Structures are given as structure tokens and as C-alpha cells.
């Protein structure tokens, strides 16, 4: 479900999903956990299914997206200036979005799934907690995939393309710049709040930007240009349309 509202003179697209909308299968969770679903069924298949069933009742999947015109890129400093703010996006992000003529800002959350995972861990069920944690990550990523795809479809109607999405905290872009991104949205948008150290709560939330323009494109893989070997997105396709 998509809604359109105006806030502070800007248009904000709102998204709400049920878990069923996302078509997230237990087998996908198993693959993320590096368990081959073709192997004999251990506790993982059953656990993934149970956790997704319970997550369906616990998650509250919400997203918001807004588009701004006229980004200015500094090719020396590798920054993005827009709407009176300058984002120090660093080399990788700058290189991917520098030809954009518009920037989409987005936030999205799976709701309190990470908090549920922490409750499970505190109760001593570390395996179920891990599966719930992975489920929370995948739920919010699947939801942002839908938002990203929807944005791509809308822009294609104008003959424009979209880039990959990029988030503070990755590709050397500091999470300390989260407040600049979040002031594009009403306070507490989608139920997400920033901690004093700029972390999002609920924890299974994602924020970021997407470049838009006639001369930008989706890059299937960016991991070869990033040195963070432990990144959770490493070797995964950034967007599966």
C-alpha cells in the first residue's frame, strides 16, 4: 500500500507492507545463514519457518521516501550537497551517484523484530535469536527492495534511471550524518527514532539515498570496489528487481 502526503512543502511517499506481501521464503533465510536447503533438514528449516510465522505477527513494516532536485557534487571532496546540507558520502557512493539530477531519500523499518531477537537471546535461545535477527534484516531489505523497485518504475515513466541504494554506515559513509537524512521526514516517521549515537530504533531499520537521472544506472555488484570484507551485504546482489 502506498500513500502520498505533503509535509514541509515536500512530497512523501509512504509504504506499508504485510510480511506476506514480501514473499520472503524460509529457504531464503537458510541460504543467508549459509545452510544449503538441499541438505538433510536439520533444525534450520523448521526454525526459519517458525520464526517467519511469528515475525508475521510481530513486524510492522513501514517505509517513506522523498525526492529532492538539484544535487551538487564536489568531485574533489567527494561530497553531495542538497537542500542546504552537505553529505560526506566518500568515494564509492560519490562515484555511483555523481551524475544524478535528483536524490531520493528513504527510511524503512521491519518494526521490533531485532528487539524480539534480543529477548530470545536474553532468554538463552541463541539459535532462535540468530534466526530472528537474520529474518529482521531480510524483512527490511525485502521491503526496501519493493520501495526501490517502485521508485525505479515511477522514474522510468519519465525516462529516468535509478542507482543502487546507499546507506550511512556503509561504504565509509558515517552514520553521524543520519540526522541530516532524517530531517527530510516528520519526527518519528515510520516509528523510527535515532539514538544519540545515530543508530536507528527499531534496530531492523534502513535509511539511505538513491540517485536518479538519465545518465545513472544500477550496478549489479559493488563489492569489488569496497574493502569491508565483513560487510553484511558483501557478495549479495544489491537489488533484485
Amino acid at each position, binding site marked *: 500500500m502506498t500513500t502520498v502526503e505533503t509535509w514541509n512543502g515536500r512530497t512523501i511517499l509512504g509504504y506499508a507492507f504485510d510480511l506476506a506481501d514480501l514473499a520472503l521464503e524460509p529457504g531464503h533465510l537458510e541460504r543467508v*545463514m*549459509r*545452510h544449503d536447503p538441499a541438505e*538433510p*533438514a*536439520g*533444525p*534450520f528449516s523448521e526454525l526459519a519457518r517458525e520464526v517467519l510465522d511469528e515475525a508475521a505477527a510481530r513486524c510492522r513494516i513501514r517505509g517513506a521516501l522523498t525526492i529532492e532536485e538539484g544535487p551538487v557534487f564536489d568531485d574533489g571532496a567527494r561530497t553531495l550537497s542538497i537542500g542546504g546540507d552537505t553529505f560526506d558520502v566518500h568515494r564509492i557512493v560519490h562515484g555511483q551517484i555523481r551524475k544524478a539530477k535528483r536524490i531520493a531519500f528513504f527510511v524503512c523499518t521491519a518494526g521490533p523484530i*531485532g528487539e524480539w531477537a*534480543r529477548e530470545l*537471546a536474553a532468554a538463552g535461545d*541463541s*539459535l532462535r535469536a*540468530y*534466526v530472528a*535477527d537474520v529474518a529482521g534484516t531480510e524483512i527490511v531489505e525485502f521491503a526496501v527492495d519493493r520501495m526501490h523497485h517502485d521508485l525505479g518504475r515511477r522514474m522510468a515513466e519519465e525516462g529516468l534511471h535509478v542507482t543502487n541504494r546507499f546507506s550511512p*554506515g556503509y561504504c*565509509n559513509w*558515517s*552514520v*553521524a550524518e543520519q540526522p541530516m537524512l532524517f530531517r527530510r521526514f516528520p519526527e518519528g516517521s515510520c516509528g523510527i527514532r535515532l*539514538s*544519540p*549515537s*545515530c*543508530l536507528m530504533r527499531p*534496530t531492523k531499520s534502513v535509511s539511505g539515498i538513491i540517485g536518479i537521472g538519465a545518465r545513472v544506472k544500477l550496478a549489479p555488484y559493488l563489492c569489488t570496489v569496497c574493502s*569491508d*570484507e*565483513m*560487510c553484511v551485504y558483501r557478495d549479495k546482489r544489491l537489488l533484485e528487481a
Partner: protein
Amino acid sequence: MDDLIARISHCIEFGKIDRASPYPPDMKGEDGADELTREALDAGIAPDRLLNEAFVPGMERVGRKFSERRIFVPQMLMSAKAMDAAMRHLKPYFQSGAVRRKGTFVIGTVAGDLHDIGKNLVAMMVEGSGWEVVDLGVDVAPSRFVEAVRAHPECRAVGLSAMLTTTMTGMAAVVEALRAEVPGCRVLVGGAPVNEEFRAMIGADFTSRDPQGAVAYLESIAA
């Protein structure tokens, strides 16, 4: 006796918790780490022998396979659960002093950071290698690390975890506080953005990309 020890070690390595546990599938219906440890103690096998010849080698193999990417987090967690089930039988011996651990290891995720999976894996592996682990959880202020070390006189090392580039800088404050307040305590740092260069810059003693590295380092200071 040796056969029983080998079977317990095997259960820990492959995550066979107890008879009711269906995992791993090829051990379905067999006794697990829980029953076999009870049986071993009833048969008169010394608890320190179980710790050193069954639990520790089992978890060592788990750590090695994880480092080599032959198993992943879920399998490691199953092994940790099997070790927990076995370790519960040894708790009375730890409390009475009949079995001594190698020391106490305090661990936590630094202030402002809520990530705990990596920290939990290290905690499990260190416990499985014969250390008492005091887990302070996530978002831990520097003063709490210092307080925990002071509250545990046998603490020989502290582990600091961070997942984000912004929160890893908070490790420096913890190292500084520990150096000032408990100077003999070793400090291990780890997490996705942490590397050797950063470790050296903040004056920590050790960093590793995987839990087994932390276990090996602690082994070297326990000797």
C-alpha cells in the same frame, strides 16, 4: 572411558545437544552431550578431564571449521548449545573449586552499538575453551567495563566489540579507562570495521577476524 570422552567431544563438535534433539540428522535418537556428560561423571571420569579432553577440543574443532568457512553461525550456535548442556553438569565442580577455569574474560559491545552476534560467538568460544565469561551485553559504557574487571579479581582480559565505524572509536575510551584503572588487564578488540592498524592506534593488545583467534590469544596468556 576414552570412548565416552570422544563421544562427548563429537557431540559438541556436531551440535548434538541431547537425545531429544533432531540435529544432526545422522545422530537422531542417540544420546547427546547432556546425557553422555552425566554418564561420564557417574562412571567416575574426573570433571577436569571432561573439560580439557572433551569440551575444549570439541569447541576447538568448531572454531577451526568456522575460521575455514566450513561451517557457519547456525552450526556454531548448535555446538555452543551442546557445550552448554554438557557444561551445566560441571557447574557444581566450578563452584566448589574442584575444577578451575583458566581465568575470567569480560566482554561487551561498546557504548552506542547494539550489535551482539559477533560478541556472542566470541563469548561462546571463549567459554568453551575453559574460561569463565562475564558478558556485559551491548551499549556498554567504559565505566562498566572497569567495574566488571574490579568485581572479578580473576579477570585477565577484556573483549570489546563494535560493528560500526562510528562506534568503534568508542573503544579508545574503554582502553584508556582500563589502562588507567586496571593496568594489568589485556584488551582484545574485534568487529567488522576493526583492523590491526586501528588496534595499534588505540593501544589494545590484540585483534582477530574470527573467534578462534581470540581463543588462541587467551590461551597464550593463560599459559
